[in-house]
């Protein structure tokens, strides 16, 4: 109702208000008049009839005193001429009716008796369709009775009915008058408003600020129109100024944008060029150093070459960080989801820092929740990059104690919520720096005399990666006690079989003794081996372990740390082999690479696992121990496809290859490889890396020559640099592919080897027709892996 009233035009609002007001006032006045008139008429009627009653009462007083009923009746009969009086009664003080007069006008349904009223005064009472008027009858000043007359209210009713009929006429008249008034007044208000509204709508719709409203009024509406016109004038003037300003600003903005774009392009080009220009000599430096390390060197020469190699690797890491940071800043950093093995990624990180932890004598512990799947769908490379950064930082900033990696999570409907935490007992971070630690160029040790190197980009990049993956990287730390960096990701569980862990319950019924003095490592191993189904006993030193081994129930397999408090791994092994009861007991020793002795490698009952242990070598070693011990549970491994025909344990790996073994070098007998590379040093690097494997190597100094040699010699594989004079690698590849199509020549694998390390570069290479990509600086194992892959694929094809 209120909403409808709000939507009503002003014209109708004013009209309705005036009509309603006028009608209400008129009808109210008329009602008041009628009420007063009716009341007055009633009072007059009653006063008049009361006069008759009083006269009659006086006349009958003597008759009443002397009980002269005929006289009473005679007097009452005189009321017959009064039309309104329907009945009259003379009542004595005892209430006895001493005389009465009943008119023929009295309705039959009315009782022929007076109503009870006090005698001592004249008063009236309303009855149904009548009034009762009673006046006392006095004699000598004393009340001796009363005369009550019943006066019909018919006349009053008739008068009210007449007034009601008249009310309809008055109402119609009021409506007509008010309608006329309302139309006139509403027109005075609404017409100017309508014109103003129409003008405003026109101005708003057409943006026509030259429109004006001409109102012939000097009241508020006239002032409103004047103000509106003035406002339009101001708006028009301001628009004119604003348009000019906007045009100027737009031009400035355009120029600024162009400059910014140009700067951005220049920056990207600079980064690409810088990356390329640095990688090219780095390729030569690292490649040559790697080759140098494969030659006979003195100890000092090898140390120097190793420093050269590690410095180069650090420089590459810095360059990669800068490139990543640049991409993040430009908003071009994207994640590529694919199935990957998280456990293997963590083991890879462990391998990377193993040397450093050994040097610093740190305990590196990996606790991977046993029931958590290993394979997920995410950007495994980037997640590994984050973990590498966190673990690298932890190792870098920890001088003693431990670095621990905890991977836990829950599975819900094929999706995992994986929580990864890296905790160390290092220098820690003060609270004021903790809040800034993820900002770019920030470091925990930001002093000028800092002990720790680094660009300060790693954590910033890691946080960006985690956020892009839908998580949040956080940290908590106590200065001087250590830090913990952790993040949580939601990742789909990969459907494919990528598990490298021991099959569940494979060791059901076996008893394993774990000997390790380090609580964390021992507990993690305990949990891991228990999850494989074995019953685990633990010991903290060698003597206690040997005693435990000679008591029933004896362990089926022993897993021991090399660095026990009371003896080393060699001594433990010797003590076991000397004991008849333990001589055949399989022993798995976890030792640093430098501690693994050659004389024990050939001992079939003793296996060595590098520590910090990786899951895959540990599974293999324990599996081999099971086979060696001849336990029936070895069949579980065979059932799970973990044993080959020769009874060797072959843990599954994502690539279907044995990652624990040294990569097999491809045999290149008769395989012709064309290397398109303009840089002389890089020619030497690549050539030397693949030399001696039987390949027939040919060099092309630029793309044009590469195309010519391809046509001429039909090589089996091409390693193509991208940036080359005369014709770059992309053009050359296109030409080769075109030639292949024209001459129905089989597709030759082309591997891009370029210092252009950006993602866009990789795409450009694939678009041009290249099959694979390897970034400079090229590592020998990487280039050999690529060659092996494409040669074998080619052979298979």
């Amino acid at each position, binding site marked *: 109702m209120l909403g409808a009233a709000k939507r009503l035009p002003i014209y109708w609002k004013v009209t309705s208000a005036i009509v309603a007001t006028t009608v209400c006032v008129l009808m109210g006045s008329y009602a008041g008049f009628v009420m007063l008139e009716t009341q007055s008429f009633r009072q007059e009627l009653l006063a008049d009839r009361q006069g008759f009653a009083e006269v009659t009462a006086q*006349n009958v007083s*003597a*008759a009443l005193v*002397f*009980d002269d009923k005929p006289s009473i009746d005679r007097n009452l009969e005189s009321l017959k001429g009064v039309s309104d009086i329907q009945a009259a009664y003379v009542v004595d003080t*005892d209430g006895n009716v001493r005389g009465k007069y009943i008119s023929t006008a009295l309705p039959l349904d009315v009782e022929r008796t007076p109503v009870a009223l006090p005698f001592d005064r004249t008063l009236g009472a309303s009855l149904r369709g009548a009034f009762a008027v009673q006046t006392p009858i006095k004699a000598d*000043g004393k009340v001796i009775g009363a005369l009550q007359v019943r006066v019909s209210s018919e006349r009053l009713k008739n008068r009210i009915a007449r007034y009601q009929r008249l009310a309809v006429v008055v109402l119609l008249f009021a409506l007509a008058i008010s309608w006329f008034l309302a139309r006139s007044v509403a027109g005075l208000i609404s017409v100017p408003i309508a014109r103003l509204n129409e003008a405003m709508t026109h101005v708003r719709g057409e943006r026509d600020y030259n429109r004006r409203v001409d109102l012939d009024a000097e009241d508020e509406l006239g002032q409103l129109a004047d103000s509106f016109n003035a406002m339009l004038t101001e708006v028009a003037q301001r628009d004119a100024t604003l348009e000019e300003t906007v045009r100027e600003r737009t031009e400035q903005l355009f120029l600024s944008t162009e400059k910014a774009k140009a700067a951005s392009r220049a920056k990207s080009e600079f980064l690409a060029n810088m990356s390329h220009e640095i990688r090219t000599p780095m390729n030569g430096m690292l490649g040559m150093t790697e080759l140098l390390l494969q030659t006979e060197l003195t100890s000092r020469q090898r140390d120097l070459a190793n420093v050269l190699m590690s410095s180069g690797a650090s420089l590459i890491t810095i360059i990669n960080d800068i490139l990543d940071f640049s991409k993040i800043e430009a908003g071009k950093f994207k994640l590529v989801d694919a199935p990957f093995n998280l456990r293997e990624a963590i083991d890879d990180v462990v391998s990377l820092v193993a040397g450093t932890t050994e040097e610093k004598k740190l305990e590196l512990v990996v606790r991977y929740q046993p029931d958590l799947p290993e394979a997920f769908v995410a950007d495994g490379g980037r997640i590994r990059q984050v973990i590498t950064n966190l673990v690298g930082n932890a190792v870098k900033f920890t001088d003693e104690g431990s670095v621990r990696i905890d991977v836990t999570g829950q599975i819900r409907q094929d999706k995992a919520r994986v929580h990864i935490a890296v905790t160390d007992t290092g220098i820690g971070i003060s609270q004021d720096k903790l809040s800034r630690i993820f900002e770019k160029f920030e470091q925990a040790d930001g002093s000028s005399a800092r002990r720790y190197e680094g660009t300060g980009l790693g954590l910033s990049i890691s946080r960006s990666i985690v956020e892009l993956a839908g998580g949040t990287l956080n940290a908590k730390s106590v200065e001087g006690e250590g830090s913990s960096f952790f993040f949580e990701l939601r990742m789909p569980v990969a459907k494919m079989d990528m598990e490298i862990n021991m099959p569940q319950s494979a060791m059901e019924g076996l008893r394993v003794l774990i000997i390790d003095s380090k609580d964390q490592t021992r507990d993690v191993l305990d949990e891991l081996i228990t999850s494989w189904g074995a019953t685990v006993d633990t010991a903290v030193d060698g003597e206690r372990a040997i005693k435990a081994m000679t008591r029933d129930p004896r362990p089926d397999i022993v897993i021991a740390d090399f660095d026990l408090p009371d003896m080393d791994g060699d001594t433990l092994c010797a003590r076991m082999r000397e004991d008849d009861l333990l001589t055949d007991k399989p022993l798995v020793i976890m030792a640093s690479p430098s501690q693994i002795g050659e004389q024990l490698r050939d001992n079939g009952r003793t296996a060595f696992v590098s520590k910090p242990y990786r899951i895959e070598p540990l599974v293999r070693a324990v599996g081999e121990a099971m086979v060696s011990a001849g336990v029936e549970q070895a069949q579980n491994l065979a059932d799970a496809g973990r044993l080959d025909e020769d009874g060797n344990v072959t843990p599954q790996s994502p690539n279907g290859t044995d990652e624990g073994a040294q990569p097999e070098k491809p045999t290149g007998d008769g395989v012709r490889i064309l290397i398109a590379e303009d840089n002389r040093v890089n020619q030497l690097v690549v050539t030397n890396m693949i030399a001696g494997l039987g390949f027939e190597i040919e060099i092309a100094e630029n793309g044009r020559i590469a195309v010519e040699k391809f046509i001429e010699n039909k090589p089996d594989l091409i390693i193509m640099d991208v940036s080359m004079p005369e014709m770059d690698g992309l053009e050359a590849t296109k030409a080769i592919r075109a030639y292949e199509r024209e001459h129905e020549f089989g597709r030759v694998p082309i591997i891009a080897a370029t210092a252009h390390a950006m993602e866009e570069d990789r795409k450009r290479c694939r678009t041009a027709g290249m099959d694979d990509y390897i970034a400079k600086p090229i590592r020998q194992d990487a280039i050999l892996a690529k060659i092996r892959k494409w040669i074998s694929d080619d052979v298979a094809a």
Partner: protein
Amino acid sequence: MQGPRSERSGRPDGRRVVFVTALGFWLSLGAAAEPERKGNAAAVADVAAFVRWPDTAEYGLSFRLCLRDDDPAFGEFVRERDATVQGKPLTVHSMQPAQFGRMPCHIAYFSPGYADPVILKRLNNQPTLTVSPERGFASHGGLVELNRDGGRLVLVMDRAALPSHPLAFSAQLLAISHQAGE
């Protein structure tokens, strides 16, 4: 004009009180049973209510009703002493016949047989309302004759004599009265 000797000579106050009480009891019973059947004393008071006395008839603070000292109705009227007539307390006075006309009286009541024509004549032009239940009283110079028609009281008056009388009679009274001699 006959009446009990004892009332004329006056009886001791104790016996008189008993008589008046008994009379009052009888009257009250009668009034309760038939309210219209009033005694003559009450009827006289009622008649007085419709008569207006001239200003010359101001005899002090009371309304004086006179009876002959030998009138037997004295006791009945004594009971009416507490009544109020014309706004004044009714006082009942017993006097010798010779005193009528000499002593002020608003009303002179005569029981049947006690209306002496001499007395009536003496009172004829005086502002004294003469009342008697004696038959023919109005025809013989009395102003109001109280007749009984069954139980109902009927007033008989000589209307012709009234206009010249010092007392003024209300129209209502005249309207319900009967003409003497009819």
